[in-house]
């Protein structure tokens, strides 16, 4: 059996070259491969293109979580439906990088998902009704099909996907939890090399085949998160504690709905 298990995050990202395209999920804190992001930051790989769902400022201390934005100084391009937090000035925090030449490509979230699917399935792209009449259509081919307007979107084919899984067996069969699943199955399938950090590695046969979400054929490297790693239930709980200390955030997350 091919060994897919790596004993460190640094080893798992060691071959990533400058200029690589990385797909990495993020929903603020959840669903994020914090340890792999931290390892790529340590490695210092340059000219990265990052594909993610939520690209917000690094609001946590880096010993609790690392969001894709810790890679900003190493990036040449960002592809994401969410840049910034609306009430914190949206994508304003990226202006200094854009002025220095970083490219930012925005689109609807469903468009991102469809482009990853297209990349995974070997399609030449998609004709998408979402984004027509908006700034997303700027610079893109438009086409009328059966009387309806569409814009052309190219497929996304990341070199690497960084995934955050719940558990994997040694073949790479992968289970996520709750809404951590989100874009990750598509990212895994679209990438040339998919690397997953998981809470637990289990023996082959320990995952009910009916429950496998991403079949092991799509997973190339597996790293188990150590007890002192990022993304553990303890670190997650510590972050919630921190967030509840800030009155404005507490009201936003837990306050009366109004």
């Amino acid at each position, binding site marked *: 059996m091919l060994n897919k298990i790596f004993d460190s995050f640094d080893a798992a990202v060691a071959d990533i070259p400058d200029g690589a395209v990385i797909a990495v999920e993020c929903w603020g804190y959840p669903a994020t491969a914090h340890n792999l992001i931290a390892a790529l930051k340590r490695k210092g790989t340059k000219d990265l293109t990052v594909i993610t769902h939520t690209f917000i400022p690094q609001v946590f201390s880096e010993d609790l979580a690392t969001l894709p934005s810790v890679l900003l100084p190493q990036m040449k391009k960002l592809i994401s439906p969410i840049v910034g937090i609306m009430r914190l000035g*949206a994508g304003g925090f990226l202006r200094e990088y854009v002025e220095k030449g970083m490219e930012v490509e925005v689109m609807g979230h*469903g468009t991102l998902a469809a482009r990853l699917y297209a990349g995974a399935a070997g399609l030449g792209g998609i004709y998408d009704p979402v984004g027509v009449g908006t*700034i997303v259509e700027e610079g893109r081919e438009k086409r009328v099909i059966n009387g309806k307007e569409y814009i052309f979107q190219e497929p996304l084919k990341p070199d690497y996907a960084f995934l955050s899984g719940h558990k994997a067996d040694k073949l790479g069969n992968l289970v996520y939890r709750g*809404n*951590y699943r989100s874009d990750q199955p598509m990212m895994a399938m679209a990438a040339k090399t998919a690397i997953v950090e998981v809470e637990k590695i289990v023996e082959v046969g320990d995952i009910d085949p009916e429950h496998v979400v991403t079949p092991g054929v799509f997973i190339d490297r597996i790293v188990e998160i150590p007890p002192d790693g990022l993304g553990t239930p303890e670190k997650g709980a510590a972050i919630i504690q921190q967030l509840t200390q800030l009155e404005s955030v507490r009201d936003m997350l837990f306050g009366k709905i109004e």
Partner: protein
Amino acid sequence: MKQRLERDVIGMRAAKELQPGDCVNLGFGLPTLCALYVPEGVRFQTEAGLLGYGRLVMADEVEKADWHYIDASGRFCTPGLGMAIFDVVTSFIMIRSGRLISVMGGFQVSEKGDLANWNTGGDALGGTIGGAMDLAVGSRRVIITMDHNTKDGGYRIVKKCTYPLTARECVDLIVTDLAVIEVTPKGLVLKEVAPGWTAEEVQELTEPKLVIAPDLKEIEL
């Protein structure tokens, strides 16, 4: 000075549009209020891949917060009975195939039903799209809840949106603190007004010409 409707009354009125069996995506902010007033049997969806999530986690039970269950506006929720979990491609097929109703906030709605609700800054960095464009284009019904006017009294229901668009000709119904307005091929139809307000007064605060519904009435909850 006449009373405008409170935010929770807007939520209550929008919730009246939802029926048992409907699957609904609630946007950030005001739309979240709808959840408090919907009939039993309405199920909620989040783009992240949950359908049928349960109630939200409140301040006195923070220990129940679990990063694996977050609603469409970014709050912690609880797993609901009969909840389904799925990936984002499935999630957006749900949205784009017209199986969901969407209740969203808005900055501006035009007389043709164009929606601007993601960006006030003008360029790509001025706002966050998220699922809004997909929801606006694909939902079976798009209900916009918003204040009728800007803080300084300007129009939000306009002839042409000046903020960057979310989608063209996508809005079905607008529920504001003054009125309920339906977007139709004949124009914007004023169907209900807040108690104490006349059609003429609502027209004054609305840029495009409103068509007055023959059965115009006060907002009923």
